[in-house]
């Protein structure tokens, strides 16, 4: 059944005419590529004469996680704008933060290249914020570690703080702890409502985020003596969640834990609903706490619980500013990345410097509560030698009347949870 394809002699003349143009265009772009990214190695400026400090952000701005990447970017940009409007880094004579953003395109190699480019240009950033996804963050961390430049990340992969990186700082709790909290707190909320959980169904997107958090869920279930009736990974690009929903319901759970993105999360919720599910579904950060989740499910979103890395009730002024600027409430990734920017700024404030290594020391040793860092759990961010945030404490949030509010544990949450079984 082979067909021989004739040569492309069929290219019409009207298109052939553009050949030279195309070639020139490509050549020009190549030259631009060579020339445009700054000259030789970096040189840091003189500390006494800075009017700006550079911050680099590397995020997935296109591709499947583009929305999360862009939300993160918006949070970072808002933080930078706010800090600059408030007078910049006062201990550096009001130096403004200049932000450079690169698209990691969901390719770890691209993320690493972007990091390399940032750090080898004429004015390299003092620190990097990124890269949202663990795979991207790991390759960036290799570059920043070698160059002794701090990287602040909101990726909660466990691995990032267990590799011995000295220059990586992780703001949220690691995934395994997030998973544990998801299980533990859900159990407590249920108990508070008089329900004893015996059977749990755990489903998760089968990538680094989903798997590591699901493990945390299972470990905690084992510890609490809860039977894991189903432990199932699925591809986040699933186009039909009905089989997953069916599997969940056949396992007769009292509670369902999902670690999902928006797309699969919504599909799952809808599939569960259409099969008359009455069991509460507990989300695992990711899609369950995004504006799009609420928009897609409408009123059906009310009552859905999820674990979160920061309390939306505490987002305060910055949250309001985000709402005003972008027309929707500030998602978790926007806030936590903004917190990273505030850590950067406050560390500079406390230790004015233009040396990334000194900044890294300052970040490691200091305590940060300015702006969004102050609305992280515990009211402050503080790193230990492995780069973990010692104050990181996941909490439970719930959709109530179309808004996401903190509901558990009672000592930090402002609202009460509702355990709903219809």
């Amino acid at each position, binding site marked *: 059944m082979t067909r021989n394809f004739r040569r492309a*002699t069929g290219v019409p003349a009207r298109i052939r005419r553009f050949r030279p143009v195309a070639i020139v265009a490509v050549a020009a772009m190549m030259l631009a590529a060579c020339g445009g990214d700054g000259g030789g190695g970096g040189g840091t400026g003189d500390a006494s004469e800075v009017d700006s400090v550079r911050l680099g952000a590397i995020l997935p701005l296109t591709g499947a996680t583009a929305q999360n990447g862009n939300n993160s970017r918006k949070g970072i940009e808002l933080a930078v704008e706010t800090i600059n409007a408030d007078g910049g880094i006062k201990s550096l004579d009001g130096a403004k933060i200049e932000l450079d953003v690169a698209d990691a395109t969901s390719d770890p190699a691209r993320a690493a290249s972007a990091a390399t480019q940032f750090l080898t240009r004429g004015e390299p950033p003092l620190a990097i914020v990124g890269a949202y996804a663990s795979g991207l963050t790991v390759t960036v961390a290799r570059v920043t570690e070698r160059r002794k430049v701090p990287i602040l990340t909101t990726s909660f992969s466990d691995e990032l703080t267990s590799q011995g990186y000295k220059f990586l700082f992780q703001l949220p709790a690691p995934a395994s702890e997030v998973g544990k909290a998801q299980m533990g707190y859900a159990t407590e909320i249920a108990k508070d409502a008089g329900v004893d959980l015996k059977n749990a169904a755990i489903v998760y997107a089968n990538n680094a985020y989903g798997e590591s958090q699901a493990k945390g869920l299972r470990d905690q279930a084992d510890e609490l003596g809860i039977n894991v009736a189903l432990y199932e990974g699925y*591809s986040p690009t699933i186009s039909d969640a009905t089989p997953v929903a069916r599997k969940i319901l056949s396992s007769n759970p009292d509670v369902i834990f999902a670690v999902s993105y928006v797309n699969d999360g919504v599909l799952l919720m809808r599939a569960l609903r259409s099969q008359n599910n009455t069991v509460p579904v507990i989300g695992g950060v990711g899609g369950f706490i995004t504006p*799009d989740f609420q928009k897609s499910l409408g009123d059906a979103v009310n009552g859905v619980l999820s674990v979160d890395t920061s309390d939306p009730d505490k987002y305060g002024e910055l949250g309001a500013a985000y709402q005003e600027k972008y027309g929707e409430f500030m998602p978790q990734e926007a806030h936590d990345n903004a917190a990273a920017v505030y850590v950067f700024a406050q560390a500079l404030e406390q230790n004015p410097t233009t040396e990334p290594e000194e900044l890294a020391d300052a970040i490691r040793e200091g305590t940060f509560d300015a702006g969004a860092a102050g609305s992280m759990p515990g009211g402050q961010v503080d790193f230990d030698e492995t780069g973990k945030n010692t104050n990181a404490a996941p909490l439970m949030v719930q959709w109530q009347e179309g808004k996401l509010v903190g509901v558990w544990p009672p000592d930090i949450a402002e609202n009460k949870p509702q355990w709903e079984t219809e």
Partner: protein
Amino acid sequence: MDLAQSVVNGLLIGSIYALIAVGLTLVFGVMDIVNFAHGEFLMLGMFGGYFASSEFGIDPLLAAPIVGLVVFAFGALIERTIIEPIIKAPPVAQVLATVGLGLVLANGAAALLGNDFRSVKTGYQGEAFRVFGLSISATYLYAGMYALVVALLLSLFLNKTDFGKAMRATAQNRGAAELMGINPKRMYMVAFGIGVGLAALAGSAVIPYALVYPYVGQQYVLIMFTVVVLGGLGSVRGAILAGLAVGLIQTLTTLVLPTELQNLVVFSVFFAVLVLIPGGVMRRVRFG
């Protein structure tokens, strides 16, 4: 009961696959081009259905034919400008040109419409029919039935109408068709337009239950190709049957294996069929 329910679900999702694949196989059958941007036309259709609902309050299923027509016209334009010149190019060039086209469409949508995940709200979302103890989701049912009807109509079109027959003639032998007074260029335009228009129509039919974002096309690409090859490149009937089959395989697999392996089985079956029955299951049915 679980088995019966799985079969029903599998057939429903399978008919969506069928509809998407039918367009793809049509393009291949007539023009011998594998269109790697097909998923992006699906995405356009999903956006079309979304906007019909959110801006004009029209149910996406009702809007689907219109969305399909609009994309048909757009597709014909694309065919004239981009596809036509590469029909005679080496297959690897065709692959890359259509991949490039896909990138342009997906990122164009991202640039113009943003990255949000959008979803429509219809009255019947979340509803399910209970029949014989089985639960059938309304949105899936409507989409599935829609898909089957359209696919059957297309089959009729190709077999019973003059235009359809002319298209099949062009597919079989362009030279001879030309001699018989058929304009192959026009055939190609129409075929491509119909092919991608069908994908868009399918998109509008599924938006009641699915979410749309600019890169959603990538999710469907591989399954679509699997279906098309399984049914025999160029065979519309094959695409329909293969679509249903793949849907069934996916759902039945999850009865016994972890969900994340469902595609493993699909691809393995696909590969086995490819090797054992070269030309796909419908190889004797050349086209139509």
